């Protein structure tokens, strides 16, 4: 059973790898990659944590609401673990 997760809705300044249009949206973990060093730390030249990178599948309906052209189409994005919480 794929795990349902929600992308944190945070809007921090600085170098961030989670697209704003997916923040606050729910999706299913399609697979887990990594661990990879956190690019949000690497960008500042500080010691970086190795994190799982999750490929999350979202429906267009979830992402764009009523504006979705084909609501059942899906989009997948790879999102680092610290951006995800149980939905």
């Amino acid at each position, binding site marked *: 059973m794929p795990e349902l997760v929600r992308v944190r809705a945070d*809007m*921090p*300044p*600085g*170098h*961030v790898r989670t*697209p*704003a*249009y*997916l923040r606050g949206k729910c999706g299913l973990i399609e697979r887990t990659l990594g661990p990879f060093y956190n*690019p*949000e730390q*690497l*960008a*500042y*030249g500080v010691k970086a944590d190795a994190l799982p990178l999750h490929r999350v599948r979202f429906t267009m309906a979830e*992402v*764009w609401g009523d504006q979705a052209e084909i609501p059942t189409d899906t989009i997948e994005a790879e999102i680092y673990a610290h951006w995800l919480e149980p939905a």
Partner: protein
Amino acid sequence: MTDMTAPFDGRRWHDMGGDIAGPIPDASHDFALWEKRVDALMIICSSKGHFTVDGLRRVLEDMPPSSFEEMSYYERWIASITQNLIEDGVFTTSELGQRITDVKQRGTTYGEAADA
């Protein structure tokens, strides 16, 4: 384009996913010698451990939106590489400034500007 009249929601200007993009330009072009050198410099900086592509991206994203109108792709890259090298202590702004002045005095062509 970002709607500058909307209340600021924290989304940064370069985070354009979902914006209306218009037609995709499909014209290709060759790269100038200096552009190829900038690309090679990024690979050298990364392989020597000075900074990573993440640092490159950070500085590009910290540029004002106007830089994407006023500077070419590799002009933005060399500005970012330069800032990352200064931050890593490879050279100081003073050393860089003196070197640019010295090289400019050699001449304006690749041949004239090259190290003797």
